[in-house]
């Protein structure tokens, strides 16, 4: 096992822009889910979501989709914290691996609408380059002169956890010294929301958006779509020590498995094997884990399956491990969710707070673990797991040590 240091965190979600706003939400159990403002949702059944608030000064350069715009905002915050600009890293030894589920879907949605509805005959020449799934990784590598290994990763809702895990592996294998790693997604477009409605997994409570997502609660109705990004600066412990960088966390282990089964029904076994693999990779035992950031979508299927998986891995210890779904607050940012959740977890745990699962008011007999339902909890956690399970049966779990 070779630990990889995290020396910078950047995050933007419906909870706000940056680490301070995110930590505040974890400390207070504040939801960022609202009625949708950025699109005309009047024809949709689902008119709520977790939108990122962008200012007028945030206008993206031509050719950038919204998912690239948010990754650059998160990347800048992470680079600043890591003092990347003065780190003097050899450009060929830096890369960017960014996960996404929907890529540049805003660009696709807006332009295809013009093509099919308004019958335009020409589309802007930037459509291809801004909508490709590696556009966010490309923009980060260009912005920071990272000339080493860079690519995008696609595994639905596990994309950014896979991205962070593989970026850590890249450093472990000596292919890079510093990596930008994380995820970005901006799927709040009419076409995508309509398609999600058809799956009947959305929590549609248009009158009480902040209460819509209720992971592990008996009255849970599903997930709430969201957008956002989180980016981490990863480097080897030696590299961080050599340049005197402040280490805010450590990627200790990475576990990735496939259900090799159903397209959309989650398998407890696939999830459990991923958690076990992350523990083994990090040289950790279940007793070392003081918190689990659950995938916790709030769908009836996921939350029962994930609970079974935790029991399978943690055995008698399962009831002693505090677990929460921060998606109850920031919604499900699809391919960005694993990265956003890693940021939420690390920021809160480093500050001595275990993030809560909000809106969990009705106990489900099939979800009978400690989900931190009573609100933010004080505690000192030195190691935790962050779970991400994607449609298609793709599972990625990160085992992480805090700075405590």
């Amino acid at each position, binding site marked *: 096992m070779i630990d990889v240091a995290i020396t910078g965190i950047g995050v933007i979600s419906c909870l706000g822009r940056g680490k301070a706003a995110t930590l505040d939400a974890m400390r207070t159990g504040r939801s960022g889910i609202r009625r949708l403002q950025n699109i005309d949702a009047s024809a949709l059944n689902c008119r709520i979501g977790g939108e990122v608030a962008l200012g007028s000064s945030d206008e993206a350069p031509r050719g950038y989709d919204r998912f690239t715009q948010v990754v650059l905002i998160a990347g800048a915050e992470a680079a600043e914290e890591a003092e990347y600009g003065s780190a003097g890293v050899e450009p060929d030894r830096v890369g960017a691996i960014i996960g996404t589920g929907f890529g540049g879907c805003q660009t696709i949605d807006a332009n295809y609408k013009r093509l099919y509805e308004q019958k335009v005959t020409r589309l802007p020449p930037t459509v291809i380059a801004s909508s490709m799934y590696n556009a966010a990784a490309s923009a980060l590598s260009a912005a920071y002169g990272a000339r080493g290994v860079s690519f995008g990763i696609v595994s639905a809702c596990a994309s950014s956890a896979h991205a962070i895990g593989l970026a850590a592996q890249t450093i472990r294998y000596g292919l890079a010294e510093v990596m930008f790693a994380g995820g970005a997604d901006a799927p709040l477009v009419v076409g995508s929301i309509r398609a999600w409605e*058809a*799956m*009947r997994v*959305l929590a*549609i409570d248009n009158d009480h958006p902040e209460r819509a997502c209720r992971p592990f609660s008996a009255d849970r109705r*599903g997930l709430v779509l969201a957008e956002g990004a989180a980016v981490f600066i990863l480097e080897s412990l030696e590299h961080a020590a050599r340049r005197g960088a402040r280490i805010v966390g450590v990627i200790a282990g990475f576990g990735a498995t496939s259900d090799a089964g*159903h*397209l959309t*029904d989650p398998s407890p076994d696939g999830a459990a094997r991923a958690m076990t693999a992350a523990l083994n990779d990090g040289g950790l035992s279940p007793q070392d884990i003081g918190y689990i950031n659950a995938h916790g979508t709030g769908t009836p*299927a996921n939350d029962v399956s994930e609970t079974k998986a935790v029991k399978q891995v943690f055995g008698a210890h399962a009831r002693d491990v505090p677990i929460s779904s921060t998606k109850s607050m920031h919604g499900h940012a699809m391919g960005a969710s694993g990265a956003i959740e890693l940021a939420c977890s690390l920021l809160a745990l480093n500050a001595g707070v275990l993030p809560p699962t909000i809106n969990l008011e009705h106990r489900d007999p099939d979800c009978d673990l400690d989900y931190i339902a009573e609100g933010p909890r004080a505690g000192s956690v030195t190691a935790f797991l962050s779970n991400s399970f994607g449609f298609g049966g793709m599972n990625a779990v990160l085992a992480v040590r805090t700075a405590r």
Partner: protein
Amino acid sequence: MISGDIEQEVLCLVRSVKKDVRVDSLTRTTTFADLGIDSLDALNVLFAIEEHFGIVISDERARAIRTVGDVIETVMALVPERT
């Protein structure tokens, strides 16, 4: 449209999604699980029914559907009376 017609049409629609189901083996108490209809197949059955009858089955109603009879009753409740 009489209920018998609706019943036959529902059975055909189930079969259109799950082709290896024998229509004559279906009864009102047959569950989706009995037919090997998983969660994704079930979504497709409800989608086919919504399209065919021009109705919208709410998520709330959809959650309660377990059997072929539940589907028929849902359709009968939502399809306007016709002469």
